[in-house]
Structures are given as structure tokens and as C-alpha cells.
């Protein structure tokens, strides 16, 4: 054999921090709404829901810098808020241009800065910016995209920037694999796949709800509902809370 192989036993020698684990997709992610999601929300209810969603995001410490993740049971998760629509082949240079890659995502203040620059690389044809100039967070909870979202670089700064900006989920027609993998591993944004081209059905600013358990997206502004694809193989990893949590859950590395 050209290489040595390690046995699972070797892995148990690693010590882990004794911090209380912070989970990206813990039950506290589910949001309660003033009205039933299937009803058309009044404008007042919408603004309440939006501010609730923004507040909940800011309640959590940045996921990339939080204490070690660990396993948990599957969570009922719902995302609600405004959506931002982009087209096909949005590459990582548009999600987070290379000049910002000197920011290290595992440092809390730099993590926050990355969020400020999320999707800043989109061409000027996108008149509405994802993060308003001067703001540090986005007002959009969900990014709706066409095909091959996240193509290009392996930079984890891409899903991190989206997560740090306050976005909770991406619903794309399809993903580039490294971006998808990084989203799953970090837990920064939930990478969902739509059945069909939601980017043509929705407009930036539409109010949407994603019901994960039912695999559907509701556009309250248009009143239409859309099926989402099952998360597939990434499901167990996401449900566990990322690659480290999954590894601990399956005994690959020791739990806390």
C-alpha cells in the first residue's frame, strides 16, 4: 500500500472543547408566526414576521465561530421572510469577490464583515442590492436562484457570507457541488433545490415561507406554492448539524 490507513480508534484520542455545543439547525430556528402560514399575511403581520426573522438571526452567535457543533434530533424548520432572486450560474466571485477573501471566516469580527459583502459581486444589472450600501445585514431571508448556483471556487467564504448576512436558505434549481457541500458542512445556509425554475416565478421582495418538513415553498405575494426536492444524501449531515456533528453522532469522532 502506498499509504497508511488510520483506524477509527486513532480518532478517539482527539480532545474536544467542553463548550456547550451550538447547533446551526437547532429547534430554536423555527419561527412562530402571528398567522397561519397558508393565509395571506397582512402587511402588519408581514413586517412583524420579518423583524422577528431578522431578530432571531442576530440572536445567534455567528455559526462559523460558535463552539463545536454536536448532534441533535431532527428539527422542524421553517424559514420566512423576503426573497431575493438571482439568475443562472451565479459563481462564487459574484457571491463574494476575491478581494474580500483576506477575511478569515473563523474570526468573529471578520465573519460579520463577510456578511456585509454578500452578493456584492453581482453585476450592476441587479439594481436592488442584496445588502444595502451602508448596511451590514440583508433584509432577505431566502435567495432564489437558477441553475448551477455557487459555481466556481471552493471558497467557503461564499456560503459563510450569505449566512453571515442573515440569509437562512437558498432555493436553487441546481448547485455546483463544492458550494453545496460547503453549505451542508458549515450549516450557514440551507441549500434547497426547487422543482423547476423558481427564479422565474418569484420576484425580489416577494414574501415567502419555506416549510422544510413538507418540502414546499409558499410565495405569499403571488399566492402560489412550489414543491422542493428532498435534501437527499446531505439530509443526515444537515439534520445532525454539519459534518462535525454528524461525525460525532456516527461515532467517527468522540462526542463531548
Amino acid at each position: 500500500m502506498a499509504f497508511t490507513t488510520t483506524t477509527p480508534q486513532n480518532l478517539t484520542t482527539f480532545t474536544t472543547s467542553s463548550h456547550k455545543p451550538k447547533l446551526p439547525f437547532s429547534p430554536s430556528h423555527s419561527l412562530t408566526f402571528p398567522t397561519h402560514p397558508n393565509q395571506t399575511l397582512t402587511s402588519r403581520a408581514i413586517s412583524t414576521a420579518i423583524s422577528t426573522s431578522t431578530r432571531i438571526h442576530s440572536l445567534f452567535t455567528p455559526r462559523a465561530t460558535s463552539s463545536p457543533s454536536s448532534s441533535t434530533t431532527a428539527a422542524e424548520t421553517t424559514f420566512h421572510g423576503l426573497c431575493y432572486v438571482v439568475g443562472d450560474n451565479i459563481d462564487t466571485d459574484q457571491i463574494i469577490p476575491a478581494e474580500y477573501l483576506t477575511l478569515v471566516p473563523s474570526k468573529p469580527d471578520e465573519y460579520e464583515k463577510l456578511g456585509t459583502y454578500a452578493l456584492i459581486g453581482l453585476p450592476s444589472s441587479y439594481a436592488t442590492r442584496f445588502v444595502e450600501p451602508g448596511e451590514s445585514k440583508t433584509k432577505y431571508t431566502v435567495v432564489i436562484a437558477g441553475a448551477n448556483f455557487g459555481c466556481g471556487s471552493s471558497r467557503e467564504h461564499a456560503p459563510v457570507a450569505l449566512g453571515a448576512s442573515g440569509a437562512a436558505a437558498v432555493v436553487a434549481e441546481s448547485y455546483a457541488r463544492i458550494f453545496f457541500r460547503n453549505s451542508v458542512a458549515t450549516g450557514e445556509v440551507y441549500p434547497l433545490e426547487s422543482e423547476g425554475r423558481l427564479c422565474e416565478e418569484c420576484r425580489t421582495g416577494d414574501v415567502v415561507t419555506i416549510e422544510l418538513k413538507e418540502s414546499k415553498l409558499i410565495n405569499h405575494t403571488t399566492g402560489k406554492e412550489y414543491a422542493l426536492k428532498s435534501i437527499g444524501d446531505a439530509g443526515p449531515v444537515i439534520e445532525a448539524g454539519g459534518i462535525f456533528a454528524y461525525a460525532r453522532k456516527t461515532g467517527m469522532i468522540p462526542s463531548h
Partner: protein
Amino acid sequence: MASSSSFLAPSSTSILHSKKDVGLSALTSTSSISSQRCQKTGFRRICCSVAAPQQSQRQPSTTGSVKTAMTMTEKILARASEKPYLTPGDNVWVNVDILMTHDVCGPGSIGIFKREFGEDAKVWDREKLVIIPDHYIFTSDERANRNVDILRDFCQEQNIKYFYDIKDLSNFKANPDYKGVCHVALAQEGHCRPGEVLLGTDSHTCTAGAFGQFATGIGNTDAGFVLGTGKLLLKVPPTLRFVMDGEMPSYLLAKDLILQIIGEITMAGATYKAMEFVGTTVESLNMEERMTLCNMVVEAGGKNGVVPADSTTYKYLEDKTSVPYQPVYSDQQARFLSEYRFDVSKLEPLVAKPHSPDNRALARECKDVKIDRVYIGSCTGGKTEDFMAAAKVFLASGKKVKVPTFLVPATQKVWMDLYSIPVPGAGGKTCSQIFEEAGCDTPASPSCGACLGGPKDTYARLNEPQASFHAFVCVSTTNRNFPGRMGHKEGQIYLASPYTAAASALTGYVTDPREFLQ
């Protein structure tokens, strides 16, 4: 469900023949299969009017201990996960032979490693980690400089064997350990070996597949995991096979081949798939050309690229590594998702027009595109062979370039080659002399340079659009041309081979190198 009879087809030397036999017996025993499944499990041979029949997914248990054919990617992952047999779609924990990281993603990966395994944790193997600062090196950006310091501190703390450090930014030659672009350095330093698994925090890690190994890019979190455990959960990709036969024309380079392929299958054509390159043309390519081929696999969405190892590979590795390796090869009966065949004698020099690597066009059809600059560099087009190719065109012309022509050697070794290796047919002149006579910029300090823009003071970065009716048009030997890739969002980047880039520099327009090479 499974049809065991489909795998008792008589062995033959032709893949197509055996697939056809397999398909016929499968048809008699399987019920109707949806076209969706056909896409995933069937074998499609492109450039053939009759599609091969579908096959259903095989369950190993139905055939007992009969070992089933695998592609070389499947074999590499099987061995690395200590499993006798793998099928595309399997998720397995894989032992990692080499993990590479650089200044952009290293600090983040280290942060995650420490967070998850503890401040005092040690990496799984101090000899299997290769840390190569290369992205934002020659800049006054403080954070960029700090990131190299973070790598240094970590390497000292962990006693990492391979850290290609740089301290004196004003003179790269004053840093004996410094290499430059990670993917080229990995090859030059003997870290790429047939049959192994190499992961890196960079999408172009797939370059190493040129050595007949499984190599792919991962993010910081995955890298942090590997740092602690030496393993990663990977999904086995199905393989697309690209057969290129024929003698390579004198005006074509591997860059043209991969641009042809990406244009053929589009930017997402190989998503989650392996790309295997075989055929007499591939066999005739030297290692650096094979690296160029595998380098842009990710631009088609590919997970990894592979070229079977052969005498060219072994020769290259002779003086570079003493670590024993064991090459693997796709089985005769291995199943491929699709097969594409190219007769290279029919291909022509290409470009990828703005703003996508699959926006393929013939170079000669773009001859009216006026350009503002040429960039020759990066892991894709900044290796010694790439510069030799450019020099060949300048030599054939004997004239001077009409636009600023930036040269960024990938590594220190490449830089030294430019100044020492005589260019064939040049009467003893080196690349650097030919470049100087042609009026190119002096070869710059080796790094990733402006391939991905970088900090604003990066050499050759596209910073301002031209103060004329069109934006900056750059012909580049790099790998991506998305909006803003090399700096300014309005920059127009034409991806091309070193031949085409040099030819374009000489005319000031996008130019087919046959203008000078025939």
C-alpha cells in the same frame, strides 16, 4: 431489480461491444425503466446514432463475491475507504493521503480545526499536510500578510514538514522555501502520486488528477475535519469518459482540448462527476499539459479529473518522490455514464468568451475583437510548458506585442526555467530573452497573481475599465472569466491557450495562433 445476467457478458476488447451485449440481456430481464434512471445508470456513448440500452442498478449481494468492474476513480476511493467495491452514489469515509491548503483558506481551516478539536489538538499527520502560501502574497494588504503569518505560526506549533514559507515580500528569491502556485508546487515537489487521494482547499485541486489520483477541492470546514482525522466523507462520482485520439496539431494545446470539452458539456455538464481523459492524444501529452487538462475540470462542474498513469508519469516522478505508489486503472468492463470521442485533428484553437468558461468560440471567429492586454500565468497557463509555448509564437513572429503583456510564472522553479532553459529553435535564447525582445512585461514574482483579482494592488489586476467605448478586454491563459474575476466587474476576459494569448498580444486582437505557427 438487479439483473445478474447483465454482468456475465463475454469479455471483449471493445467497450461498446461489451456494453451492447450487456444491454441486450438486460432488456430481456428488466421491466421498463424511466428515462430518469436511464440518465443515471445507463451508458451513453455520444457521437453515435444508436444509444446503448439501459442497465439497472446492480446489487453486489446478488452475485456473491464476484468482484465487479470499477472505473479508476471508483477504485481509488474504494482502496482509500478500505472497501472491496464501490458504486457511484456511495457515501464513504475516505483516508486522505495529502491535504493542501494556502493563505486564503488555511487560516479559516485552522480556526475550525482548533474550535472542533481543541486549541492544543495536533494534526493527524504532520507529513501529509502541505501548506503553500500563493494567493495574496506580493501585496501590502495587511490582512493578506497576516494570513501568511497565521500559517507560519501553525506550522511551527505543529511542526509541519511541508510549509513553503515566504517572509521577504520584496524579493521572492530571498525565500528559499517559497514555491508559488499551490497546484504547480504540489506536482513539482512530488506530492502528487498515482492511486492516492489528495484534497485541497482550492477548486483547482483537481489539477493533480493528471497523476492518476483522486484530487478534488474542499472548503474550510471539511479541511478542518481532515486536519483532525485524516478522513473525509465523500460521495463516489460516476465517470464521464473523454477519448481523444489523433496526433496533436502543432497549433493546439491542452487548453484548447479542455475548452472544447467544457463548451461541449457546459459549465454544469460534469457536476458531481469524474472526468476521465484517455486516448492516444492524451498519452502524447506531457505532465504539465495533462495538468492543464485536469485543471479546468471544475469549470465543467466536475468533481475530479483523471489521466491514467503511464511512463510519462513515472518519468516525471522519478526524481521527485521516493514514496511508493500504486497506480490504478479503469477495468475493461467499468461502467461510464457517457463517453465522448474527439478526433483532435479536426479541432481548432478556441477561446471562452466573456463571461463563462463554456462560452466557447473559435479564436479565428473573434479576430475583430480588439483587446487591451494579455495575461499569461496561473496554475492553468503559467507553467514552464505554457511559457515555452508562448515563446514559440513570439519567436515565430519576431515582432513586438501591441498590448501590455503580463507574465506571471506559477512558481519559483518556473521563473528560473524562463531564465535558463533554451527555447527549441531559438538559437540558445531563453524564454525570458524572447519575451524581452517581444516587448512583454518582465516576468513577475510567482503567485496566483491577478487570475482571481485579489487585493487592489495585485500586479496586472483589472482595475479600471478603459476610458474608451469598451471595457477592458483581456486575453488570459487562466481558468475563469466570470464578471469581476480579474478585478473590475466590467472587465471582459477571453480564456485562451498560451499560443492564442501570445498571438493575440502580437496583433492587438483575439488571434488564431495559426497566423504565426504554420
